[in-house]
Every structure is written in structure tokens, then in C-alpha cells.
């Protein structure tokens, strides 16, 4: 939450909120980011690991020592705890935010995020989702949003990652001309997708 404590429920507000978290991630060492990213790839492939990591971080945020975890969740967790097994809050808090966003998304979206991390296409997807959120204001009303062709260079159609990422948010899409039918119910998912793409691309230093 920005320093003045006010958040407006629009794209500007979302961007302000995400940037506040992003600033914390920017302070992280590059090697640490790489370790976290590798761990996250594993966690996104395993829903149980994602839940276990979120539970462990919640436990740690209530000032309790954190129990070690196995697998990819454990690898992420070890980056965020001190030798006394207490969470390092400066690292953990932005990560809890990111996990909250990821947990709002579907399994299919998790798989596509992993692919985008591997292919280094996170920022491309981010530009598209950001553009949609900006143009679909006010979010409380249904609308039709045209997608700019320059953001669709990597393809647009029923089987492209960009299409599926948005469709999984609960949006109806059309191919020609490319546009999206905005549904107010999709707001939570779309905003969580934007936050996930922003923070993952920050971590991967794309």
C-alpha cells in the first residue's frame, strides 16, 4: 500500500500498489532473485507446494519460527528465513503478496506463467494485460476493449498463451478484430494476473 495509505480502485491504483511491492523486490540481490525464481517455477507446477509455501509464510508472519519444507516450496522458503528460522520480513512481505496473486489464478495460468518465465515472454504478456486493464475502466461496467495489434505480434487466437491467460480470467475474447468483452467479475483475476506478471518479470530482471 502506498505511503499515503490511499488506493483508488482503478488501473492507476493497482499500478501504485504493485509498484510499492516491486520496489522491495528491486532491492534483492540478483542471485537471490534467481534462486527464488527457480523455486517458484517448481512451486507453480505443484499446487500443493504452492499452498504449503503460503501456509508457512503466514505462520512466519505471525512471528513464529518457520518449519522447514521439502521440495520446491522448501527451496523458496530457505531464501526467506534467517538462521534462527524467523522470516526476514523485508523479503517475505512482497513474496506473500506475490503468492496471494498467484493463488488467485488457475492451474492453467500457472502453467502458462512457467512457460513465459522460461521463454522470457513475461513482459510481453504484461504489456497486453496492462493495456486491457487500463482500457476497460470503469471496471464495474461491461465493455468491449480493442487490443492494439502491436501487442499481439506473438500471435492471437484460441491456442496462444495470451488468449488462454485472459480467457482463464473469465473474459470472452474475439479473434478478428482482436478484442475482449470485459466482465466486472473478471476484475480480481485480471488484476492478480497483472500483479503476478509484473513481479515475476521484476524477479527475472526481464
Amino acid at each position, binding site marked *: 500500500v502506498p505511503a499515503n495509505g490511499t488506493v483508488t480502485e482503478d488501473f492507476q491504483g493497482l499500478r501504485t500498489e504493485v509498484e510499492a511491492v516491486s520496489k522491495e523486490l528491486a532491492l534483492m540481490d540478483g542471485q537471490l532473485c534467481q534462486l527464488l525464481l527457480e523455486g517458484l517455477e517448481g512451486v507453480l507446477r505443484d499446487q500443493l507446494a504452492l499452498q504449503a509455501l503460503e501456509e508457512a509464510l503466514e505462520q512466519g508472519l505471525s512471528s513464529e519460527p518457520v518449519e522447514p519444507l521439502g521440495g520446491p516450496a522448501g527451496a523458496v522458503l530457505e531464501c526467506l528465513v534467517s538462521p534462527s528460522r524467523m522470516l526476514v520480513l523485508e523479503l517475505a512481505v512482497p513474496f506473500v503478496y506475490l503468492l496471494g496473486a498467484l493463488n488467485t489464478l488457475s492451474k492453467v495460468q500457472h502453467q502458462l506463467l512457467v512457460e513465459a518465465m522460461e521463454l522470457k515472454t513475461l513482459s510481453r504478456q504484461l504489456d497486453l494485460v496492462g493495456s486491457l486493464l487500463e482500457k476497460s475502466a470503469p471496471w464495474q461496467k461491461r465493455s468491449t476493449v480493442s487490443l492494439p495489434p502491436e501487442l499481439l505480434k506473438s500471435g492471437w*487466437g484460441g*491456442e496462444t498463451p495470451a488468449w488462454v491467460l485472459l480467457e482463464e480470467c473469465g473474459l470472452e475474447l474475439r479473434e478478428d478484430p482482436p478484442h475482449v468483452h470485459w466482465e466486472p467479475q473478471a476484475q480480481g483475476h485480471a488484476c492478480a494476473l497483472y500483479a503476478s506478471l509484473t513481479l515475476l518479470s521484476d524477479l527475472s530482471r526481464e
Partner: protein
Amino acid sequence: SAFEWLVRRVIQELDHGGDLIPVTSLQSSTGFKPYCLLVRKPASSWFWKPRYKHVNLSIKDILEPDAPEPVLQHGGPFHIRDTVDGQLRTSMEVAATGQGKVAGRVLVSDSSSTSLNVFSLSVGPNTWQALLQERRLRQPEHGILQQLRHRGDNVYVVTEVLQTQKDVEVTRTRRREGSGLISLAGAMCLQGTGQGHLSQKKTVTIPSGSVLAFRVALLVIHSNLEVILFPDKKQKTFQPPPTGDSREPPTDISMKGCISNFWTDA
């Protein structure tokens, strides 16, 4: 997912107030039956909603079992028809049919129209009153409840659900050209329309009785048990221990209530 799509469509038609909470996966659907206890995961953002998680416990597990089983009120069924025209779903209609009448899944007028029936189950206000008057909190407190008390988590109880009346087959088709499409048991018929080329088809069967959406109330466990249908932000399930008092919180609920009242009065 196809399940989430179905949930969204049903909520869109039946919940204009926006207070029904969608179930996000078929796998977790059974955990949201009436009387099930839930915790709420706070949202880390202003922009997405908190999630509810079931704790594998019903309110009946935390009350003494010496009273008749509480009954549930049935509503609906609500008949939802999804008409598909070419590539795009164009309309949905909702009608409440006679209570108790089993309508099931019906192929409505032509090959591209399908429908489903959902109904609601809810706990009436009088049932809550009787339940809480006649049945007392089980002692000692259930282990899961003790853990939630220790964590200071609020506990919610499911008061109303919207669930499917019959098995519903949801088919998702993707076209090599043309838009993505989801329909209720209509994919085979759509192939017959000759529009576009279907390249991928996924079908999921949602069993009858699957919970699609629910409403909750806050449980307040102090000297007695209360169900708060419209809680304010200050109300908590468990009284926080008084500040400055380093003693262990009492395990006896009525004793805790006394101490809480004492501190409030003071």
C-alpha cells in the same frame, strides 16, 4: 476452467447483489456444504478478493450432539438455459420452476441450446436460533478449533449454497480459427453447424449436488456461540487476550467470556 466458467455463468444470472462466493474448483466443492466451517485467507491486495478455505469440520462437530438434526430450506430449482448461436453464447434465461420438481438437464429447442437446473439450500434464521439455544459447545473444544483460536483466525459457517440438481456435462471447445467456446453439453451439436474448425475439446462432468457458490456467516465463540449473518469489521470469532496480561488464555470458554466481559467493563 470449465467448472469456473459454469460457476461464473450461474452467479451472473442468480446473484445480482454480488454476495454469493464462487467455489473455484470442483475438487473443493464438497467442503462448502451447509454448516461447514471455513476460514478466510485475507487478500494481500485491495484488488482481489479474500479466499475461503474449508477446515474439514462442520458446526455439528463443535456442538454437543444431543438434539435433532437441523433441517435445511430448499429454494428453486432455477432453470438456466444457455443458448449458443454460431460461435458466441448469446443469451441465458433463468426461471424458477416449481419447488421439488425434478427437471434435470434438458436439451431445449434445437441442437445449439442446452440448460441446467440448480437449487439452493439454506439454513433459516429460526433454525439458527433453535440450534444455538438447544445445543451447547462441545467440551473439550475440538482440536482444530483450538488451533484456529491459537492463530486468532476468524471462523465462518456456510449458511446457504447453490448446487447442481443433476449431473452437468460442460464441454470446452477451442477452434483453430474463430473464438474459444464453452457450452453445456453442446459441443457435439455445434460440430454439426459447420462453422469453424474444432481443434480441441475438453469435457468435464460436474456431478449432481456439486456446490457452485455459497454464503457465509461469522461464528462468534465467547461465553456462548453466536452466528452473525451481517458482521461488522470489529467482530471476531475469538476474543483476543487482554493486552498486558501475559497469562495463558483460559481453555474454558465460559471462563474466557467472563474475563472478556470484565475487561470490556473495565
